[in-house]
């Protein structure tokens, strides 16, 4: 498609660069700063950072306790209808929610928009920034982090990483390198804007609340 424009544009670039020395690729880009940190320490850091950007996090000791913790939270804040991501952890987490249904492939944007809350699994958590990395392969999954006005994220303690490294982003990087399509998104707190006189307002377009449940990263009693 538009081969002439392509050829001319690329020729113009090559011509402009004539005589420019090409440099070697930089090495050592992935300075692995991960420490063999105790997950409970990372979880505490994650919680602090997420709260600094108006999100919330709760630590749950075991997988068995997760559904009840989520039901209790949903009841407390008045969430009644849910669309649930396709992962096993997300389905388990939603098992005690009456108004939950899966976000399967055929789901329409209007259906997603109509529910109170999305429930999705994060493939990685970045403690240093309070960010959750979510991989969405289908249309339904892609809509979940944005359309409902509340978002619950569930993750295992083993998903915690100290900082932004390629290890932390490996799920997104591996997907990109292997040709998986869709979207990976790092979510760091609720949607926000400061476009009117730099006054922060939450829930600009996406969720107004983001709650992250981390399983298996509690401090030893």
């Amino acid at each position, binding site marked *: *498609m*538009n081969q002439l*424009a392509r050829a*001319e544009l*690329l020729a*113009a*670039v090559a011509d*402009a*660069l004539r005589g*420019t*020395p090409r*440099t070697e*690729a*930089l090495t050592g*880009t*992935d300075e692995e700063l991960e420490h063999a940190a105790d997950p409970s320490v990372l979880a505490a850091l994650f919680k602090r*950072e997420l709260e600094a*950007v108006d999100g919330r996090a709760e630590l749950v000791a075991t997988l068995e306790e997760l559904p009840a913790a989520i039901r209790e939270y949903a009841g407390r804040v008045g969430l009644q209808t849910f669309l649930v991501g396709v992962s096993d952890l997300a389905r388990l987490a939603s098992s005690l929610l009456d108004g939950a249904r899966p976000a399967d*492939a055929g789901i329409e944007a*209007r259906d997603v*928009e109509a529910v109170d809350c999305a429930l999705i699994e994060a493939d990685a958590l970045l403690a240093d*920034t309070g*960010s959750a990395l979510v991989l969405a392969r*289908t*249309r339904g999954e*892609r809509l979940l982090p*944005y*359309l409902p006005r509340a978002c619950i994220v569930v993750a295992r303690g083993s998903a915690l990483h100290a900082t*932004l*490294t*390629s290890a932390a*982003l490996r799920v997104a*990087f591996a*997907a*990109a*390198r292997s*040709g998986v*399509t*869709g*979207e*990976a*998104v*790092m*979510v*760091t*707190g609720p*949607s926000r*804007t*400061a*476009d*009117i*006189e*730099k*006054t922060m*307002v939450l*829930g*600009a*377009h*996406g*969720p107004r609340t983001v709650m992250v449940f981390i399983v298996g990263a509690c401090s030893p009693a």
Partner: protein
Amino acid sequence: MSASGFQRPLGPVSLPSSMQRSVEHKHAAQAQVAWTALRERAHAIKARAIADLDRLLVRFEREFEARGGTVLWARTAEEAAALFVDICKRHGASSVVKGKSMLSEELELNRRLEGAGIEPVETDMGEFIVQLAGQRPSHIIAPAVHLSREDVGALFRDKLGVPYSDDPARLIAIASRRLRERYLQAGVGMTGANFAIAETGTIVVVENEGNGGLSAAVPPVHVVVAGIEKVIPTLDDLLTFLPLLSRAGTGQKLTTYTHFFLGPEPGKAAYCIMVDAGRTQILRDAKIRESLYCIKCGACLSVCPIYRRTGGWAYGPVYAGPIGAILTPAMLGVRHHGEPTFASTLCGACREECPVDIDLPHQLAYMRSKAVLADAPAARPQRATLRWFARAMRSLGMYGTAANIARAALWTSTWSPWKPEAIRAWTSSRELPRPAARSFKTWWRKRQ
């Protein structure tokens, strides 16, 4: 641009303090990381990417298309807009929801879409406000920074028919509700690209509102418009750029959303329009090539003493601030767009702030010299002044006459209430020095 553009400050009185708060916020965030090391690394990555741009563009195209997308190439703004309109028509789209993109402003995409009967809907809150007001953005990342909450309240009352409010939360809620329906109706969603990854054909977009994610995910077609300079070699390079961009742009450790668009999932189409529109002209000139390293964070605007005083519109189309004063004349022609190059004190604050360490002051001085050589109208007063000065300095008689005239003018100004319009703003708050009673030459002659 009008010749008097810089004489009329635009924007609210709060602009300088708003920019100052923004800078303090960013500095606090930058102190949390090895800022200098990250900055040097970012500069090196961009230098490598730009030097290898022809190869990286081809690699990006191959990888993007291997994942089901289509790459289109545009030599000019008109060509890019025509390609966009063609995509909309082929997919039967009557409206486009747009994520924030300065390139879209550069292409005048809204005007061109409207001309083709397609409705463009800006979804970034600041862009939505300026579109409603029929204005242009005045800041790269804060498009409506020139409007007060009262301005926005009155605008919404007049244009949307809602009761007046100056509460930002209420105003945002109104806009958000309006835009929800537009996402669901739109046939095409558009985003820009903060980075285009050659290694994997991935488009990376950072934002805070979620409108970029919605624009890309909800409509059945996603169109990315990207300048050719947005290509970087590898995914790992993001580990350098993401912390820099968010900290320099908004003072955040990371923006609320960092999207990796991997390619269209089943049932969806994705396009990337790669745009030149003057960028190869910049590439050709080694003295300003570094300006293509810009990651459009807006940091240089926030610290610029001229921008703080004038706001963004004074710079004309499209990019404001120090980087705009280089990019705009370089892309659109220095003869007719040379005025912004003079809108700098060359104090160097912009370079100190730049997360990619672009040598902005030297490039500004260079573009200024090009404006003079091209006989840009903005450079004419300076040229004429220097020409007369050079003439006077070459002739003893002429120098003496000029000095006498200057002394007489200065003496007159000490008692005359009338001041020339051009210097009134200066003299209204400052006293001119009292002239010496006689010239040095006269004094010296009498002393002999």
